[in-house]
C-alpha cells in the first residue's frame, strides 16, 4: 500500500467524521429554519445539506444582493462573495444590501456586513479582489455551486471556463432594462456551458450594461432570487428547472417564458470532447476585446488632434463666446435628465441615419458656424458621431468637427461640480 492510499483513506474517514458532526441541527437551527424544514422536499436532510454546502457568488451587485440574501437566510454553510468594486450611490436602487453610509467602501465587505446581521451562523468569505485567470480556479474549487452575478462578457467567459474545469455547476443570471435571463450551465454531461451557447464573443461595442442601458431595480431582484432558488434545489438534490433551459423574463410584458437551449457541444473549447482550454484558462479581455471593468472602457476612434478636453472646450470656446454648435449625442432620455443649456440633443442612433446628417447640415447652415463639437456621457459615442459625420457630411467645407474627451462625466468632475453624474 502506498502512502497516497493511506492519505486518501484517512481523508475519507476525516470527512465522514466532520459530516457526522455537522449532520445534526441544533435546537436553534431547527426553530430558525422550521418553515422550510417542514417542506417534505427539504426536511431535516435538506437543511443539513444546505448547512454543509458552500456557494460562491461572483458579483455583489444587482443580482448578487438578492441571491446572497436568500442563500444566507436559508442557512447555507459557507458563502463566498467576490467583487472588487466600491459601492456607488447609483447602485442603491437595486443593490439593497449596501447602505448610504457605505458608499465608497468595498461591495463584498458591505454585503457581508448586512448578511451578518441577518444570519451570523453563515461562514462568509470576502474576496475584495479582481477575479481573474490566475485566481479564479483556486477560488472556485473551494465551493460546491457557483453563481454568476456579474455584468460583463469577459468575466462571464472566465467564470464559465473556471467552473467547467473545476467541475462545478454554474447558475447564471443577467438583467437589463425590464428583462432578465437565467440558466444553469454545465449542470451535467448533457447540458451546455456558456461557450457552447456563445462560442464567439460579442463584437466589442455591441454589449449594453446597466449603467448605459438602465435597469429597473426589481428586475435583477427577481432574477437573483430565482438564482438562489435554483442553487437551493441543486444542493438539496431537487431537480433544477433551468438546466438545458433558459428563462426569459420580461417585466414589462409580465411574461415568464422558458425555452429549450442546445445541448453540450462536443466541439466546445472548454467542455467539449477535446477541449483546448484547461486549468491555465485564457486571456478573457483579449478574447472579447473589452476590459472586465468599466473605468477602462474608453474607445480610441479619433486622433488626439480631433479631440478637446473639457477645460480646453470651456476656456477656448465657451468663455470666449466662439460661435459653434455643441451636439449632445446621448439618448433623448439622458439628455432630458440633464444637458448643457446650449447643447442640441441628436442621439447617436439618429446621427447615423440620413435624417441625422440632413438635420445637422441644416443646423450648421442656419447658425452659420464652422465649429461643431460632439459630447456624450463618457466620450465614446461622441467619437463615433464625430467620425461618422466627418465621413458622411462631405458636401460642406471648412467645418471643424471635434469631440469632447470624457463627455458629461468629465464635465461634472472637472468644470461644474453641480452637474449630476448618472
Amino acid at each position: 500500500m502506498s502512502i497516497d492510499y493511506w492519505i486518501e483513506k484517512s481523508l475519507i474517514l476525516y470527512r465522514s467524521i466532520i459530516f457526522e458532526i455537522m449532520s445534526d441541527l441544533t435546537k436553534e437551527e431547527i426553530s430558525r429554519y422550521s418553515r422550510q424544514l417542514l417542506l417534505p422536499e427539504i426536511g431535516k436532510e435538506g437543511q443539513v445539506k444546505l448547512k454543509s454546502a458552500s456557494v460562491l457568488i461572483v458579483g455583489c451587485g444587482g443580482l448578487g444582493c438578492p441571491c446572497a440574501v436568500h442563500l444566507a437566510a436559508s442557512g447555507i454553510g459557507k458563502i463566498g462573495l467576490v467583487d472588487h468594486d466600491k459601492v456607488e450611490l447609483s447602485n442603491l436602487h437595486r443593490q439593497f444590501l449596501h447602505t448610504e453610509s457605505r458608499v465608497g467602501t468595498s461591495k463584498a465587505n458591505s454585503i457581508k456586513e448586512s448578511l451578518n446581521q441577518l444570519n451570523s451562523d453563515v461562514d462568509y468569505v470576502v474576496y475584495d479582489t479582481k477575479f481573474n485567470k490566475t485566481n479564479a480556479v483556486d477560488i472556485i474549487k473551494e465551493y460546491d455551486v457557483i453563481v454568476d452575478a456579474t455584468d460583463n462578457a469577459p468575466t462571464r467567459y472566465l467564470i464559465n471556463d473556471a467552473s467547467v474545469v473545476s467541475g462545478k455547476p454554474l447558475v447564471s443570471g443577467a438583467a437589463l432594462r425590464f428583462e432578465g435571463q437565467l440558466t444553469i450551465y454545465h449542470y451535467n454531461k448533457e447540458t451546455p456551458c456558456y461557450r457552447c451557447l456563445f462560442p464567439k464573443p460579442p463584437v466589442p461595442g455591441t454589449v449594453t450594461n446597466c449603467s448605459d442601458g438602465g435597469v429597473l431595480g426589481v428586475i435583477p431582484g427577481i432574477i437573483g432570487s430565482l438564482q438562489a432558488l435554483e442553487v437551493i434545489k441543486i444542493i438539496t438534490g431537487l431537480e433544477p428547472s433551468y438546466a438545458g433551459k433558459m428563462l426569459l423574463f420580461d417585466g414589462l410584458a409580465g411574461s415568464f417564458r422558458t425555452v429549450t437551449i442546445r445541448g453540450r457541444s462536443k466541439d466546445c473549447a472548454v467542455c467539449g470532447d477535446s477541449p483546448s482550454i484547461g486549468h491555465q484558462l485564457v486571456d478573457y479581455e483579449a478574447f472579447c476585446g473589452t476590459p472586465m471593468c468599466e473605468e477602462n472602457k474608453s474607445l480610441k476612434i479619433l486622433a488626439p488632434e480631433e479631440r478637446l478636453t473639457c477645460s480646453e472646450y470651456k476656456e477656448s470656446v465657451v468663455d470666449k463666446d466662439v460661435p459653434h454648435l455643441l451636439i449632445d449625442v446621448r439618448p433623448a432620455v439622458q439628455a432630458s435628465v440633464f444637458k448643457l443649456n446650449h447643447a442640441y440633443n441628436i442621439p447617436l442612433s439618429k446621427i447615423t441615419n440620413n435624417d441625422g446628417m440632413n438635420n445637422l447640415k441644416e443646423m450648421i447652415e442656419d447658425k452659420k458656424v464652422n465649429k461643431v463639437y460632439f459630447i456624450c456621457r463618457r466620450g465614446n459615442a461622441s467619437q463615433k458621431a464625430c467620425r461618422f459625420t466627418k465621413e458622411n457630411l462631405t458636401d460642406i467645407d471648412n467645418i471643424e468637427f471635434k469631440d469632447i474627451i470624457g463627455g458629461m462625466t468629465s464635465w461634472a468632475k472637472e468644470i461644474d461640480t453641480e452637474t449630476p453624474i448618472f
Partner: protein
Amino acid sequence: MSNHLNIIVEFKGGMELLFDNVTKKELSLPVNSGEDGSAPVEWTIKDLINHLKEKHLKERPELFVNDDSIRPGVLILVNDVDWEILGENEYKLADGDKVLFISTLHGG
C-alpha cells in the same frame, strides 16, 4: 399560383431597439411557385434574416448581422426551441412559426 407563409417574429433583449422598438411583427412572406423566381419557394432562417435586414431593420445593421449570419450573442428561438437544434440557418420555416430574436444580456 402564389401563396403566403405567415409567421410571427419577435424581438427582445434589446433587439427591438433596432426595429423601431417593435417587439412583435406578423409577417406574410410571399411563397412563389418558382416560375418567375421572384421569391424563394421555401423560406429558411437565413432568408428571413436577410429579409428582416433589408426590409425591416431601422438602424445599426452591424448589431443584427455579422459576416452574413446573425451577430454573436443573439439567440434565435423557433417556437421556443434553440435554432441550433433545428439546423440553424438552413431551418425551413413553416406556417405559424414563432421566431424570437433575443440578445443575450450581460447586466447584473
